[in-house]
């Protein structure tokens, strides 16, 4: 038996944590919103993936909950410079939702209740890197944090993890979303500090 028991875990201190450039650590969960929080009835909620040929794939709220769930624990990084570590979520992998979708598209535009949009390369939504999540920290996702469901794409700045998500539009050509069209970086990699267009 080794000196360190298998159950021992070193506590993460600020000094031990490597953050993306320009970020600071927070224990809070700040709320950023570009508009009013939409009231979304679960009876009418749906998530749609629309392919570039116009074919649509839909899930109701109950159908989403019936799908096998994953519980990712991830660090999140907001472009306003806060980072929050080891956040826990529950939701459905985009790999699963995309499994039967027939597409050759390279890009996706996420659409949300309330009108928000954000664009991503489709490959960034696959390979275990993106989810539609409906729980945060063991509780249902609060409306101010994007509930009933939001996109979670933690390897990009958090504005890409669209709150109140209602669908993905798959596209052959890229199209800027709500913030990308007014100065924010098209891709938004926090480790390359891609905050603004031209960074």
């Amino acid at each position: 038996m080794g000196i360190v028991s298998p159950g021992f875990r070193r506590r993460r201190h600020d000094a031990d944590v490597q953050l993306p450039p320009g970020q600071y650590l927070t224990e809070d969960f700040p709320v950023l919103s570009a508009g009013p929080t939409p009231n979304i009835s679960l009876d009418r909620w749906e998530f749609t993936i629309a392919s570039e040929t116009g074919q649509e794939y839909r899930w109701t709220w109950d159908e989403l909950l019936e799908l096998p769930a994953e519980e990712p624990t991830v660090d999140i990084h907001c472009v306003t410079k806060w980072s929050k570590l080891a956040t826990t979520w529950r939701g459905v992998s985009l790999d699963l939702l995309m499994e039967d979708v027939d597409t050759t598209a390279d890009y996706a535009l996420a659409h949300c209740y309330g009108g928000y949009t954000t664009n991503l390369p489709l490959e960034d939504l696959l390979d275990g890197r993106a989810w539609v999540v409906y729980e945060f920290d063991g509780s249902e996702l609060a409306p101010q944090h994007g509930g009933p469901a939001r996109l979670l794409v933690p390897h990009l700045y958090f504005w890409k993890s669209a709150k109140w998500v209602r669908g993905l539009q798959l596209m052959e050509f890229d199209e800027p979303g709500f913030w990308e069209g007014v100065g924010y970086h098209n891709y938004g990699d926090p480790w390359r500090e891609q905050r603004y267009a031209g960074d």
Partner: protein
Amino acid sequence: MTDDYQDGNALAGPLAELFAVDVTAATGRCVSCGDTRRVADLRVYGHAQGWVARCPSCEHVILRLVRAPDAAWLDLQGTTSLRVPLPPV
């Protein structure tokens, strides 16, 4: 939060950097519902990574303003025009 916004006077400071006139006194027409309002009367959501001003009648986005360290982006797609009051010439 649902009602977590300020009125359009919150744009006086950030817009003063771009415009020589006080744009909050200007009036614009919403492209969505046609309502004509002073910029000062818009609903401004500033708890974001930029300022987003919405029409009080229909919540359509009238104006977006993003400030980077070395540049600013202003989007006025949501208004058909701005009428800016000026001193008589």
